């Protein structure tokens, strides 16, 4: 059986993807599919991206040809670290309890 996706939260997946460097929409889809095994739809991706930009967690960069790349903001990096820290605590607790 294939490994299950670590999370289906598009916002979290986008933040993780952009933590690796600025990317445009198509590159984000490919990156997320590669590291999480999740195939986000284009509407889901841009819906989450617009919310993250509204919250100031990501920012648009000048267009690169016909594509616009996005980057993680400092506040997005802090939010991501905080969410991953919370997830990590839950994962560690879960692993201890199942004895893995």
């Amino acid at each position, binding site marked *: 059986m294939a490994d299950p996706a670590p999370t289906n939260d598009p916002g979290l997946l986008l933040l993780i993807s952009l933590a690796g460097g600025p990317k445009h*929409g198509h590159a984000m889809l490919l990156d997320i599919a590669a590291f999480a095994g999740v195939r986000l739809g*284009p509407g889901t991706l841009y819906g989450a991206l617009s919310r993250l930009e509204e919250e100031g967690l990501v920012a648009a960069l000048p267009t690169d040809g016909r594509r616009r790349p996005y980057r993680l903001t400092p506040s997005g990096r802090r939010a991501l670290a905080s969410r991953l820290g919370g997830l990590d605590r839950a994962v560690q607790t879960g692993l201890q309890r199942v004895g893995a």
Partner: protein
Amino acid sequence: MSRSPGRLVRLLMRCYPATWRDRYGDELLDLVSDLPLTPRVALDLASSGLGLRARALRAGAAHRVLQGDSVMAIQPAWRHPTAFAVAGALLLLPTFCLVVGSLLGYELGLTGLLGIVAPIQATAASIRAVDLFLVAAPALALAAAIAPLVRLGWERRDGTLQAVLAVRALALNLAIALVAVAVGSLLAWHIVVESLLEAGA
């Protein structure tokens, strides 16, 4: 899926709020043009767009309430009264024709009309869904015609949220509402009389 990407994608983009399309529309279109337009992608675009639209409506309403403005709970009906009136008229039309045809045929003895109306009534009565629709149509038409006349909402006054109800008069909607009430009353009267006659027989 038969592909007509330009037209279908443009149609799906209509699901998104206009302000959102102004900001992200070109980028999303560019991304979609790089992907095969499968049913999954089409569904994703539609559901995401409608979700963003619902979110924008909720955010707009909450913002206006916080600003002290009143907010409508039935905004589409208020904004499109003629469309609702026409929808009401179309809903009512089949029942209206059968009721008027029956009246003219049975009460005024226009047997030519009865020859047309009676077979239609018999067919309608034999199909439960059609029969139910014909009976429910006056109520549905009344609701469609009346909805744009009623403004139901809430507003913030002296720091508290208060319900607000206002009514406006629009001739076309009122006329269709009155016809719906008349047709519904005739239909109800007919059903009651018929039931009494059957009970007595």
